C-alpha cells in the first residue's frame, strides 16, 4: 500500500511538473509583454485615448460604474444560447447530409449562409425579430454552426472503408454501423468543430450587440467609444477574451470527461 502511495505522490508530482513546464513560458511571455506596455505608456508620451496604461485597464475592469458582471451575463447568455443551438443543430445537420444524397443538396445553401457577412445581416434580424437577446442568439448561432456541420460530416464520411465493409459482410444493419463505427470515428472531428465554434459564437453575439443592444459587453464598448474611454474598451476586450477562453475550456473539459479517447 505504501508503494502505491509513493507511486501516487510521484504521479502527482509529475503532473504538477508538466503543468508548470507548460505554464511557465506563457507566463514569462505575458509578464514581458505587459512590462513593455507599461514602459511605453509611461515614457513614450502616448495619449491615454490611443493606448491606456495597463493599470488603468485593470482598474476599469473592476470599476462598478461599467456593470461588467451584468454586461458579461447578457453576452454570456447570447453566446451560450447561440453555441448550444449551433452544436445541436450543427451535429444533427452534419449527420443528415451524410445520410442521403438528397440531403446533401442543402450543403450549398449552408455554404452561402456561412459566407454572408453577419454585420450586414444583423440589422435585418433586429427588424425581423425585434430588439433584445434573441436576435443576438440567432446571429451567434449562424456564425458558429457551419464548422460543426462540416466537421461532423467529414468525420462520418472519412472512415477506413475496411471497417464498414467488414461490418456489412457480417450482416450489420446500417443504423448499427452508424452508431458503432461511423459516429465514434467522427467524434474527434466533431470536438474539433465544437472548439472552433466557441470563438465564432462569441464574435457573432458581439456583432449583434454592436448593431443594436442596450446591454452586453459590445454595448459597453460603444459607450466607451462615445466618450473616448479607451481604457474601458480595453477592459471590455479582456472580459470578452475571458468569456471566449472560458467557453473553450468548458468544451475541452467536456471532451476529456465524455470521450477521453477522442483527442
Amino acid at each position, binding site marked *: 500500500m505504501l508503494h502505491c502511495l509513493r507511486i501516487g505522490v510521484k504521479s502527482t508530482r509529475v503532473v504538477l511538473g508538466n503543468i508548470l513546464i507548460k505554464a511557465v513560458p506563457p507566463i514569462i511571455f505575458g509578464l514581458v509583454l505587459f512590462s513593455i506596455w507599461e514602459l511605453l505608456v509611461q515614457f513614450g508620451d502616448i*495619449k491615454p*485615448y*490611443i493606448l491606456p496604461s495597463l493599470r488603468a485597464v485593470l482598474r476599469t475592469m473592476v470599476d462598478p*460604474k*461599467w*456593470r461588467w458582471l451584468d454586461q458579461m451575463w447578457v453576452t454570456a447568455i447570447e453566446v451560450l444560447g447561440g453555441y448550444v443551438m449551433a452544436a445541436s443543430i450543427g451535429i444533427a445537420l452534419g449527420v443528415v447530409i451524410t445520410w442521403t444524397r438528397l440531403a446533401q443538396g442543402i450543403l450549398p445553401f449552408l455554404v452561402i449562409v456561412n459566407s454572408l457577412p453577419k454585420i450586414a445581416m444583423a*440589422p435585418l434580424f*433586429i*427588424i425581423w425579430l*425585434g*430588439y433584445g437577446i434573441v436576435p443576438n442568439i440567432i446571429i451567434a448561432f449562424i456564425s458558429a454552426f457551419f464548422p460543426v456541420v462540416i466537421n461532423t460530416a467529414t468525420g462520418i464520411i472519412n472512415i477506413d472503408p475496411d471497417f464498414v465493409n467488414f461490418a456489412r459482410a457480417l450482416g450489420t444493419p446500417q443504423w448499427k454501423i452508424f452508431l458503432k463505427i461511423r459516429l465514434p470515428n467522427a467524434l474527434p472531428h466533431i470536438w474539433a468543430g465544437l472548439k472552433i465554434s466557441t470563438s465564432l459564437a462569441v464574435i457573432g453575439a458581439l456583432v449583434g450587440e454592436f*448593431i*443594436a443592444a*442596450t446591454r452586453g459587453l459590445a*454595448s*459597453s464598448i*460603444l*459607450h*466607451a*467609444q*462615445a*466618450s*473616448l*474611454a479607451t481604457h*474601458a474598451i480595453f477592459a471590455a476586450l479582456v472580459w470578452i477574451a475571458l468569456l471566449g477562453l472560458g467557453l473553450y475550456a468548458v468544451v475541452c473539459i467536456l471532451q476529456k470527461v465524455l470521450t477521453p479517447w477522442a483527442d
Partner: protein
Amino acid sequence: MRRKVLWIAEVGCLGLLLAVSGLAADKVIFRLNWIPSGEGDLAFSYVAQELGYYKEEDLEVTIQIGSGSADAVALVDAGRVDIALAGFESIAVARARGAKVVIVACFHVNSPYTIWTRADTGIESIRDLAGRTIGAPPGDAQRVAFPAIARATGLDPDSVQWVNIHPGAKIQSLAAKVVDATVHFFDQMYLYEQAIGKDNLRYFRWADYGVNPYGLMFVVHEDTLKTRPNVIQRFLQASFRGVRWMILHPREAIEIMQRYVPEVEIIPVTSMLEQSIKYMLFDNSIMQYGLGWIDPARIKASIDLVNTYYELPRKLSPEELYTTALLPHVTWPYPTEFENPNYWPLPYEFRY
C-alpha cells in the same frame, strides 16, 4: 347577511379591477438615434421619465438606446417602435424609398454638421480641403451631402479624398493624423479638444456658411399617426417638457440620465448638451412658435438638399414628409426662469 356582504364586496372588487384595466396607461416604445454617452441632448427623455412627465400624460414609455438614424427609421417603418428620433436625411431618404414615415416635430432646429481639422494641417477654410483626406463611413450623412457645403464655399467636392473609417474612430483618426479632417456633430467639441488640444483644433460649422438643414426630428409611422394621434401628441408634450427642463438644468439632466445609463460620463456629456442647447436647439422660430416647431421654408430647403444630393428613386415633396398637427405647446424658457437673465436665451454662461 354576512354572505351577502361578502358577495357584494367580491363583485365590487371585480368591477374595480375591470375599470382600472380600462384605464391602463398607453404604452409607447421610443427609440433614440444614438447612445446617451455620445449625445447629451438625449437626456430630455430620461428627464421626462424621471420627473414623471410621461406618467402625467398617462403614458408608459420604454426608451430604447439607438444605433444610428437609419436603424431608427427602419424600426419605425417596421412597426417595431412607435416613435423615434432620427436625422432628417435618413427620414427623407427612407420616405423616398417607400418607408411610410412622417415627421411630427423638430428637435435640432440647426444642423449639427461640422468639419473638424487640426491647425497643423494648414487648412484654414473649407476650400483648403482640396486634395486633402476626410475620414467618414460611406453612409455618413455629412459625406453624402458634402457637395452642398462644398459648392456653397467654392470647393470642388470631387477634389477631396474620402477615407472610410468607423464612426467611433473619427476623433482618434484625426488626432493620430491618419486623416486631415473628419465630419462630426458640433456637440463633440469637448472630446476633440481633449484629443487634439484646444489650440490645435479648427472647425467649420455648416450653418455658419448658410447650409443649415434640419437635424434630428421625431418620426412616426403613418399608421400610428392615424390610429394613435392623441398618444403621439401627449408623448411629444411630455418629451418637450423634458427638453425645457433640460435647457434650464443641463448638469442635473445629465445626472438624471446617468442614473438610467451609468456609462454616461458627466463632464463630456454635459459639454455636449451645452453645445446642443446653444447651437442646435435654439433659433428665433422657436422663440415665436415654441419647441418642436417645423418651419415650412426651412423644411423645404432641407428637402431640396436631399433631392439634389442623394440618389433617390423619386423626388420628395414637403406635404408627404411632415405634419404640424401634433406639435406640443411648450415654450423656450423665459428670462425670469434663469438664475441670471443676462444669459438668456441660455441658462448660464456656457464655456462654448
